[in-house]
């Protein structure tokens, strides 16, 4: 019983810290920090997903910002594109397939409207607007991400080492180029005026100052949930299979583990984590830009996972929150990218198992109360 319960300690610690931080900041009238902490939470979701993929399953991904962007842009586009503009819908339909296309587009809109996922509103000029309900857009974002992750993952995960790294890098760059080069995605300016995401019981993901505390808890509740799911997974049969794959693919296969399937599942799950982060942040920020898909962003996520310790979800969570928060506050100023680059190099050179490895191993031994395990794994 003991090992099973002990692994939830980091989760409890997380919840405690989240509540403590908010209480302290509100008391000290420093609530504006909550904004960056909320943003850091959504970015940390990406890092958590990547930790599962890189740290536990051992598959490098240099393009994970791509999934964040796919989630974010899908949600942003669907909640801002005005389907009522007769020009837009009919024109798109007509361009696609003539008169039948235009009629088809109209029918599609009618169907969506009947499904109740469209939202009416008025734009700045008093014209009618028709956009997709944020809930539906969110679901669509996850669906699109899942489809892309599976289509990309199946061929990519057959690769190893440099080839896998480059393939994921290429994927990320393709997403970035498409984001910056396509009109519907706002090209270099991205998409703005993304509406709030009304959840339930009066809660909404939105950047409004009045809802700051609420959004902080929404974001961190998601991170906590994501963390909890991860803890569960790692301690389960599937989690062990992933770690076995990371350790030795041939041996894992010989033990009955369907390696390609497990890798794909880990890839898909980590992509979904990133997409959730993107799809939510886009409503909090009210917009998204092509920079979110950049190589630099992908490298940052890798740096966060590496520093936190490849195989440590808790470490990744801590490091990601801290560094992302500092970066968002501008603590690194002009040297932001350089700092992440330097951190990456330093960690990989001197502490490839992450900063917490020596400390963590010591704490773990304390928790287990055993003196037997001499030296951490290499």
């Amino acid at each position, binding site marked *: 019983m003991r090992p099973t319960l002990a692994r939830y300690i980091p989760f409890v610690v997380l919840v405690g810290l989240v509540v403590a931080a908010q209480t302290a900041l509100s008391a000290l009238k420093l609530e504006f920090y909550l904004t960056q902490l909320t943003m850091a939470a959504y970015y940390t979701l990406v890092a958590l997903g990547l930790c599962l993929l890189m740290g536990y399953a051992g598959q490098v991904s240099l393009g994970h910002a791509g999934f964040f962007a796919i989630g974010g842009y899908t949600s942003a586009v669907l909640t801002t594109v005005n389907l009522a503009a007769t020009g837009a819908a009919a024109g798109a339909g007509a361009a696609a397939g003539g008169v039948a296309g235009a009629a088809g587009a109209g029918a599609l809109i009618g169907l969506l409207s009947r499904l109740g996922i469209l939202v009416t509103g008025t734009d700045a000029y008093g014209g009618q607007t028709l956009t997709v309900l944020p809930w539906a857009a969110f679901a669509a974002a996850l669906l699109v991400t899942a489809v892309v992750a599976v289509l990309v993952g199946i061929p990519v995960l057959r690769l190893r080492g440099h080839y896998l790294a480059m393939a994921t890098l290429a994927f990320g760059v393709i997403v970035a180029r498409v984001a910056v080069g396509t009109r519907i995605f706002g090209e270099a300016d991205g998409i703005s005026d993304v509406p709030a995401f009304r959840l339930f019981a009066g809660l909404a993901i939105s950047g409004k100052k009045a809802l700051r505390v609420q959004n902080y808890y929404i974001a961190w509740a998601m991170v906590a949930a994501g963390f909890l799911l991860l803890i569960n997974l790692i301690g389960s049969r599937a989690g062990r299979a992933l770690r076995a794959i990371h*350790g030795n693919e041939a041996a894992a296969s010989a033990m009955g583990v369907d390696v390609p399937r497990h890798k794909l599942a880990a890839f898909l799950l980590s992509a979904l984590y990133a997409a959730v982060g993107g799809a939510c942040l886009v409503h909090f920020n009210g917009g998204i830009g092509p920079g979110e898909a950049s190589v630099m962003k992908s490298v940052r996520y890798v740096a966060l996972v590496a520093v936190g310790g490849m195989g440590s979800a808790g470490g990744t969570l801590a490091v990601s929150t801290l560094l992302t928060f500092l970066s968002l506050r501008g603590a690194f100023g002009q040297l932001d990218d350089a700092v992440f680059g330097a951190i990456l190099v330093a960690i990989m050179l001197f502490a490839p198992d992450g900063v917490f490895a020596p400390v963590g191993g010591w704490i773990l031994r304390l928790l287990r109360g055993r003196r037997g395990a001499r*030296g951490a794994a290499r």
Partner: protein
Amino acid sequence: MNEASRTLLAVSGLHHWFGGLHVIDGVEFSCRQGIVKAIIGPNGAGKTTLLNLIAGSLRPRTGSIAFDGHPIAGIPPHQVAARGISRTFQATRLFPRMSVLENVMVGSHVRGRQGFFAGLIGPAATGREERRIRRDCMAVLDELGIADLAARDAVSLPFGRQRVVEFARALASQPRLLLLDEPACGLNPKETEEIGGLIADIRARGITVLIVEHDMSLVMGISDEVVVLSYGRKIAEGTPSEVQANHEVVSVYLGASDA
């Protein structure tokens, strides 16, 4: 048919080559249930390749391999494992960053069912199966006398102990056929003797063992039957004493002495 003399594994017309090298040249043999059968031969004879072909990590160019009557040639390793064939590796391939118990629990992967979804939900969905697997794996460790090492980091153990852990991991799936790839490799005589005892225990439990091995004392001491390979061909098959007396076998090992 007598349960004990039922054919469990049947290899026939097996051919495999790497590039221009014909490593397995028409090998044919069968293995009855419940025995220990050894595959021996000089270096380069193709013994490990043969094992890899049976275990599924290689797909034979031609030929057939039947396990309990069902063809298994060319099916991927994880499906071979699901059918009840388990294996160890010549150089131990324990999983790093995992404890001994966790290594063995991966060994029993085929005896579990919960996947990603259940895994995410956690103990509510997986608790019962997890407890059963953990209990069964601890029992395996116990039987092999290494229960006290359960929480140890597997790859940090001394070599001889790692070998035993590999055994435990292979046994955790409750296989019907166990493939051992040079289990005595790198062990001293005393450790080799222990391995021999271990193999005898395994046989006593009704598990069939196919062992590739160089160490003659182990082979002759523990095997019921022996197959001798040379340059990818089977040159002899029979009981240990029959094979020992076979002239061709002797010459292949010691070098033909032309009059």
